[in-house]
């Protein structure tokens, strides 16, 4: 599983990075979305992989922390998801506005000079 997941992170990151480096605003925003998937999975992965043991506790009694997934990276990812959602939305609106004002969807708001 570790190998698959790390490969997945790599593919998501590579696709995202490639898009982020493209000249069209829409490519960049899709790239940022893919990148944030990769990063979320990466943060999550720092808690190691645990199958079928979500950090949902019994009410009281002894608790063996090693039997459950590390909850902290999960909490961090949750915050990160929300924040990157918000900023992606903002970026989207800005690129719409940029397109409206400049008439192009190039990231530099002007077509590349040949």
């Amino acid at each position, binding site marked *: 599983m570790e190998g698959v997941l790390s490969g997945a992170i790599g593919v998501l990151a590579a696709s995202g990075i490639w898009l982020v480096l493209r000249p069209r605003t829409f490519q960049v925003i899709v790239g940022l979305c893919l990148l944030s998937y990769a990063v979320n999975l990466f943060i999550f992965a720092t808690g190691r992989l645990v199958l*079928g*043991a*979500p950090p*949902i506790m019994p009410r009281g009694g002894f608790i063996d922390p090693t039997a459950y997934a590390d909850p902290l990276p999960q909490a961090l990812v949750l915050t990160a998801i929300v924040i990157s959602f918000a900023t992606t939305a903002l970026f989207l609106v800005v690129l719409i506005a940029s397109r409206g004002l400049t008439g192009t969807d190039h990231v530099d708001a002007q077509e590349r000079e040949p």
Partner: protein
Amino acid sequence: MTPDTLLWLALTYAQIALALAACLATLRMVRGPRAQDRVLALDALYIAIMLLFLVTGLRLGTPFLFEAALVISVGGFVATVTLAKFLLRGEVIE
């Protein structure tokens, strides 16, 4: 072949079959050719994943995947409806 292993095999088969279904749907999604094909494939992918949630929950013995399945069934619907409406009207909200 005890019922025990049979169930286990069935679970494994179900997982693989659903994952395969997802793969096929993805192929259609990539191949297109028209936008409506892609949306249709995405809808199928959502369903396959929703079912995979349930089967995996059973296999892992954890009931906590149910919410995810519920949310994907509702959310997937909204997502595909939005995509379909975009195709139909050229606008999402008018």
